[in-house]
């Protein structure tokens, strides 16, 4: 858990089985065995990563997950780590999003949520060798432009290809503070998010980030509210208020106007 010096901290996140741990080993030079059991990465693994220019950062490998709406303890670890809410741990200075190059549609949904964290981001399209076998060609420059200018690099961690590109991309992300393009919410949802953030901040006396406000509004799971100390009654009361109710009908079934639809439109743009 200890950090050698107060250097920069970089976190690896991504869907399960995208090769985060393999990439981690390639970047840090640690020789750890990587199993193929889903959810293998439960402990905090960290190592020192050279960015190719002599600069060294601490790299931390996080458990795989599909969404920042936590459904299990290991997913909660990722959310807490990314938002700097783990005791004794810093908020990461950059996030490396590891993406399975053979399924951008599913993987980039997580990107749309990581964008809200407001940290510099690098996107690594891993398993590029498998994508090539599938005859998939990915225009990394176009993808980078569409995602707001974050570095997008291809790699095959298992074959050791593209690792230097990843190191350089991390250095660039930190130097240029490259931010992922954020989802533009419809006005009623944006207003509801602002209301939720304001109410939670007022009730708890703590600042509420954009990412937290979304978790508070969109998730049925109360973990973010619990962390902030926002009670169930306070949250319920806010979510029932007029502005928010108009943005998100409390009743199900669910018309396709609800938030996740918009979120996915943004993350699965027609570019791919």
């Amino acid at each position, binding site marked *: 858990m200890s950090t050698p010096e107060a250097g920069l901290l970089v976190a690896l996140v991504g869907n399960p089985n995208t090769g985060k741990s393999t990439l981690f080993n390639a970047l840090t030079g640690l020789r750890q065995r990587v199993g193929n059991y889903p959810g293998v990465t439960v402990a905090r693994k960290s190592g020192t990563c050279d960015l190719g220019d002599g600069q060294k950062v601490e790299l931390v490998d996080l458990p795989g997950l599909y*969404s920042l709406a936590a459904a299990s303890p290991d997913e909660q670890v990722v959310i807490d780590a990314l938002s700097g809410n783990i005791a004794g741990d810093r908020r990461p200075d950059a996030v490396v999003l590891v993406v399975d190059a053979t399924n951008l549609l599913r993987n980039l949904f997580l990107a749309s949520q990581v964008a809200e964290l407001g940290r510099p981001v690098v996107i690594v399209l891993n398993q590029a060798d498998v994508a090539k076998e599938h005859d998939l060609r990915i225009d990394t420059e176009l993808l980078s432009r569409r995602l707001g200018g974050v570095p997008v690099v291809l790699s095959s961690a298992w074959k050791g290809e593209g690792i230097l590109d990843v190191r350089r991309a991390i250095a660039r992300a930190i130097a240029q503070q490259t931010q992922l393009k954020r989802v533009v919410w419809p006005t009623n949802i944006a207003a509801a998010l602002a209301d939720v953030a304001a109410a939670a901040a007022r009730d708890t006396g703590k600042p509420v980030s954009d990412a937290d406000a979304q978790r508070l509004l969109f998730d*049925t799971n109360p973990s973010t509210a619990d962390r902030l100390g926002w009670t169930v009654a306070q949250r319920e009361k806010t979510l029932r208020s007029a502005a928010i109710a108009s943005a998100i009908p409390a009743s199900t079934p669910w*018309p396709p106007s609800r938030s996740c639809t918009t979120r996915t439109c943004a993350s699965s743009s027609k570019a791919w």
Partner: protein
Amino acid sequence: MTPLSQLLPGQFGKLASLNPERGVDQRLMALGLLPGMVLKLIRRAPLGDPLAIEFGGQVVSLRLAEAENLIVDVSADCPIQRPRQP
């Protein structure tokens, strides 16, 4: 409108709605399953449960009870979404 659980192996359906109050549906949405997306029932386990379904270039296993809650439109005519081939 038909429950996903009633599709035949190989049959397609377009998802009509999800219920985000159900944890399973939230999970499926995180995997990219959203209204309007085309699903295909790949096969059933020998006793009819679970089912293998395909959407968005991936195959996912669902319990029969979970598939009963997903309503699809089988009359919608469109091919399953796959990663685009060059």
